[in-house]
């Protein structure tokens, strides 16, 4: 899967949980899920669960631990689907 398809899928997953919609304008690897998009921490769990469903992977808590930016999420997905 190319990075741009992965980014597109992630954007679709996070959008319903984003509290700060302008943060989506510059959506990319650097985008911080908490600071730029203001996703609350309960919804961060929802993001993780939706990523698991979309990519058919399991994200353990150690992997979830570091999922703070879109780039972090991409790395987790890539390592689990490789």
């Amino acid at each position: 899967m190319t990075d741009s398809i992965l980014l597109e899928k992630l954007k679709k997953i996070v959008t319903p949980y984003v509290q700060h919609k302008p943060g989506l304008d510059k959506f990319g690897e650097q985008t911080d899920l908490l600071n730029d998009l203001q996703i609350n921490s309960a919804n961060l769990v929802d993001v993780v669960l939706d990523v698991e469903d979309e990519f058919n992977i399991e994200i353990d808590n150690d992997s979830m631990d570091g999922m703070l930016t879109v780039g972090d999420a991409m790395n987790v997905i890539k390592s689990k689907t490789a």
Partner: protein
Amino acid sequence: MIGNDIVDLRLAALESDPMRPRFLNKVFTLREQAYIFKASTPLKQLWLLWTMKEAAYKAHQRQFSLPRNFNPLLQECTILCQSRDSASGEVKIGAWVYHLTSIVNEEYIHSSASINPGTQDGFWKIFSSSVDLRKHLSLDISQHYGIPANTVSFEKNSNFVPVLKHKNKIFPLAFSFSKHGKFGAFSRELMNY
């Protein structure tokens, strides 16, 4: 060190469905899940545990200037005492124990965590989320320590933790803000200055 967390129960019911087993297993240990299922109002109990763990995590992150992370299973919460409108507990993170005091009502749950035992070393206030929490904390500090509110300012450090400045010098008071839905709160330590 201090941490706090507030949950607007009405908004939380719209935003999240945390009673799903997969959600529970990512956030709560089996012991914590037992607290939830034994309670007369499981969802409310879940948010009580959630705020306790979040508040403790914030206090811990500040205590050790840690980078942000998200691993709720590393925080183990024990409820020590609970009534209809309040609760106290402990959250263990590694070798550290944080002491929690919570208030619970129909509208919100607020928990405040401190590394020191006893409720005497923390103080909090709940507001409507439309107020400027920084301004209210400045006024509170100004009153309490006799310094003009306009000489107090806030900055975020490299771990995104807000720090208080008085005349451009760090003012060593631990505090924490939390906002959710209709509610906002600050919590601060009580110290002699």
